[in-house]
Every structure is written in structure tokens, then in C-alpha cells.
């Protein structure tokens, strides 16, 4: 008679190295992004996406839509932690809402980093610059640890997912929300 627990337990203990690798990878990305943004000479102009009144509004709305998808990802993420209650499509929705959200932020971060650099002239701008590094670092760490999802402990995904979500919402608040509040929520 075999003891099922004796079989699964050893596999769980091997998560340390992949997890540390994932976290260090995330830190490296965050650091590189911050350094590039700070050292690169800001051009004050970058390619923008037509259809909005200005590049600033294009970025603000893209970030707002991304934040909306992030909320969907958070909700499905919560349901997924209750594994028994989650239908199969919830995992798919979770993954795809996340993918869409992060892909929508790509033109925004390229514009921010290329045209504006790592700003420090006000608290809002400094927080935004730091959070931008944190968000992409956490995203990379989450992707790398997801590659070995089966060996990761239960707490890893909620924690990394939480950091990704909170940093994205804080990024939205320090940019889009500020813009809509000071200059109006129009296109």
C-alpha cells in the first residue's frame, strides 16, 4: 500500500531554486528598466497612436483599459485559488485578461521611458517611475515562476499576482487618474 503523501511531498520541496531564479530575474528587469530610463536622454517625443487628442490621452486610455482587464484577472485569480470551484474557462479568462492587459501597457511604457525617462521632479512622477519598474519586474517574476507552477507553493501566485495588480493600479492612479482629474476625462 503506498502512501500518496510520501510521493507528493518531495516534489514540493524543490521550488526554492526556481522561485529564487524567478524573483532575481524580476529584480534584474526592474533594475535594468530603471537604469535605462534614467540614463537614456529623453527625446520628449515618441511615436504616438492616432485617434486621441494627444499622446498623453492615448496613454491614459490604454492604461485605463489595461487596468480594467487587470481587475478581471484579479477576480478570476481569486476564484482560481479556490480550485474546486473554478470551471476550466476561468483559468483561460485569467490568462488572457492578463495577457491583453500587459500587452496594452507596452506602447505606453515605451513612450514613457523613451520620451520622458525616469522622472524625479515631483512625488507623483517619482512614484510612477518606481512603480513602472516594480510592475514589469513582478510580471517577469510571475511568468518565470509560472513555468514551474506545479512545484510552487500555494502562496507564490497570489503574492506575485497581488504585486502585479497593485502596482498596475497605482501606475494608473499616478498617471491616468491624475490626468483625468486635472484635465478632464475625454479622449
Amino acid at each position, binding site marked *: 500500500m503506498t502512501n500518496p503523501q510520501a510521493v507528493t511531498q518531495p516534489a514540493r520541496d524543490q521550488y526554492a531554486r526556481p522561485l529564487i531564479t524567478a524573483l532575481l530575474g524580476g529584480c534584474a528587469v526592474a533594475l535594468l528598466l530603471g537604469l535605462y530610463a534614467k540614463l537614456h*536622454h529623453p*527625446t*520628449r*517625443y*515618441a*511615436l*504616438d*497612436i*492616432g*485617434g*486621441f*487628442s*494627444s*499622446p*498623453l490621452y492615448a496613454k491614459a486610455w490604454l492604461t485605463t483599459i489595461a487596468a480594467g482587464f487587470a481587475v478581471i484577472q484579479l477576480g478570476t485569480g481569486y476564484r482560481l485559488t479556490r480550485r474546486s470551484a473554478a470551471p476550466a474557462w476561468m483559468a483561460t479568462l485569467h*490568462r488572457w485578461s*492578463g*495577457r491583453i492587459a*500587459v*500587452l496594452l501597457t*507596452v*506602447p505606453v*511604457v*515605451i*513612450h514613457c521611458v*523613451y*520620451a*520622458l525617462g525616469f522622472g524625479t*521632479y*515631483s512625488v507623483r*512622477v517619482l512614484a510612477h517611475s518606481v512603480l513602472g519598474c516594480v510592475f514589469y519586474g513582478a*510580471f*517577469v517574476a*510571475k*511568468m*518565470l515562476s*509560472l*513555468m*514551474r*507552477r*506545479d512545484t510552487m507553493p500555494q502562496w507564490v501566485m497570489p503574492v506575485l499576482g497581488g504585486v502585479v495588480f497593485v502596482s498596475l493600479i497605482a501606475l494608473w492612479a499616478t498617471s491616468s487618474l491624475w490626468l483625468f482629474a*486635472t*484635465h478632464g476625462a475625454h479622449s
Partner: protein
Amino acid sequence: MIRRGPLITLAAVVVLAGIFLWANTLVPKSEGSAEGTPSPSAAASAAAAASPAATTTVAHALFAGRGSGDQAVVVIEINGPKAAAEVTADRHLRVDLQGSVHGSQLTLTAPNGTGLTGTVSGPDVFGTITGFRGQSFPFSAETEAVRAVYAGRSSGNEVALAVNTDGGKATAYVCNGKTLEAWLQGSVRDNQVTLAGRNGASLTGTLSGLAMFGTVTPKAGVSFPFSAELAPRPAGVFQARLAVNRLATRIGWVVLPDGTQLGVAASGTTSGPAPALDLGDDSFALNGASFTAAPVDGNDTVVSP
């Protein structure tokens, strides 16, 4: 078991970022300021134009200096995104170079193979000359009687401003195109710009490469961070003084590098948006009559003592 899904997502993000970053390197850098500038079709036309767009005329930035071992005299002239240089030795060997400016990086070449690369750092240029009489050597140059116009907006697009420098003197005008405005006057020392005006108005800035970064205070208690760029005409400050309904009226305009203009007309004690300025002949219409505005220089007096 290693799952590939997350890796594919990561790869997709990196590839998309690479595409946007590459597309940005194709954009002509002479096209005005980033935040708040409406450019609906710029995306399509900017991606198609692989080389920097030629601009009309001149913001005169002139640098003169020598090679570090006195091998030659160097004069560099920057006009918008284009640059030209002369490297001269012994009075009879002169090489003319042509090239461009990207951000604060200069790259120029001559038909005979001589090359010049350098970085604009405030009032100085530091760089290297290669292939001159078979030699390569470092050089440094500093600004010569720089008459330049820096124009831009505050970071939240609250106001537009233009600063004129002429050697060590500078003037500026800042306004929001409605009722907030200030005329400023002061000095440029090394790469620090310090200007002051009435009602606690001030401007402090640092010249860095071809840009100016700083803080503008149009009136006491109201401050904004701003960035401005060395800009060719028509960018600059324009002024008109006339009598409207027998009230002394002063009108100021800021013209930005992309041709956008913001202006405020102060008539007696009331202020309002300025009439549109025709950038072709500097004329504007007020109450049915046509007048001419004058461009403002770094040397002018705009704040009466």
C-alpha cells in the same frame, strides 16, 4: 514539468516592446514636444519618414574650440536637427563637415573621410575628430554668443513658454492662452538660467544638451516644472503694444516649434486670449484693423524696472 505558456507571453511582450522601440528610432526628432501635442496622423507619416525632417530656419547655436593638443581649431554650428562644422589647421588646411544632431549627440562627416562626433553638454561640446591629417584627437568647444530660442510646455501642459537667450542675457514669456501670463527677464550663466518678472514671477532652468529643464512660476504661488527645446523659427516670443479703446494694451505670444501659438492680451486691467498671429508676416487683426507684432530677443527689456 515546465509550462511554455508563460514563456510565450513573456516573449510576446518583449517582441512588441522591441517593435515599438524600433519604430521610435525612425521618428524624426525635430517634431516638437511630446506631452499634450495633438498629432493624430503623425504616427503614419512619422513611421514612413526614415530620415529627420528638414526644418526651415535657424536657432543659432555656435560653438568654437580647439583640439586638445592644439592640432586644429573647430567651429560647430547647429541649426535645428542639422549641424555643420569647420576644422582648420595652420590657416590653409580646412575641412568642412556636415551632419546631424540626435538628442545631444553630434555626428558629422566630410567627403575626405574626416569625422566628428561629440556631445552637447550645456554650453560646451566635447568629442573626437578622426581622420584629420591622418590623426584622431579629442576636442572641446564652448558657446559663442549664443542667440537661441528654447520653447516648450510645463509638464502638465498648464502653460506654454519660450525663452530667448543672447549671450548672457535672456528674456521669456509664459502664458496659458487665457488670462495667466508673465514677462520675464534675467541672465544665463554657464548653464543656469535665472529670470524674474512682476508679481513674484520667476523662471529657473538648467541647459542640458539642446534642452532646458526647470521650474516656471507665472505668479507667486503657482509653479510648474517644464521642459523646453532649442527650437528653430517660427518658435519664439512675439510682442505688440498698442492702444485699444484708448487703453494701453500689451499682447504677448508664445509660438512653439510645431507652430502652435498661445497668447494673452492685457488691456488696462483685464486679460484675455490674444488674437491669432500670422506666422508668415507677424501680423494680427484686432477690432478690424491689422497690426504687426515684433519678435522678442534675449537682449530686449520686457520687464520695466
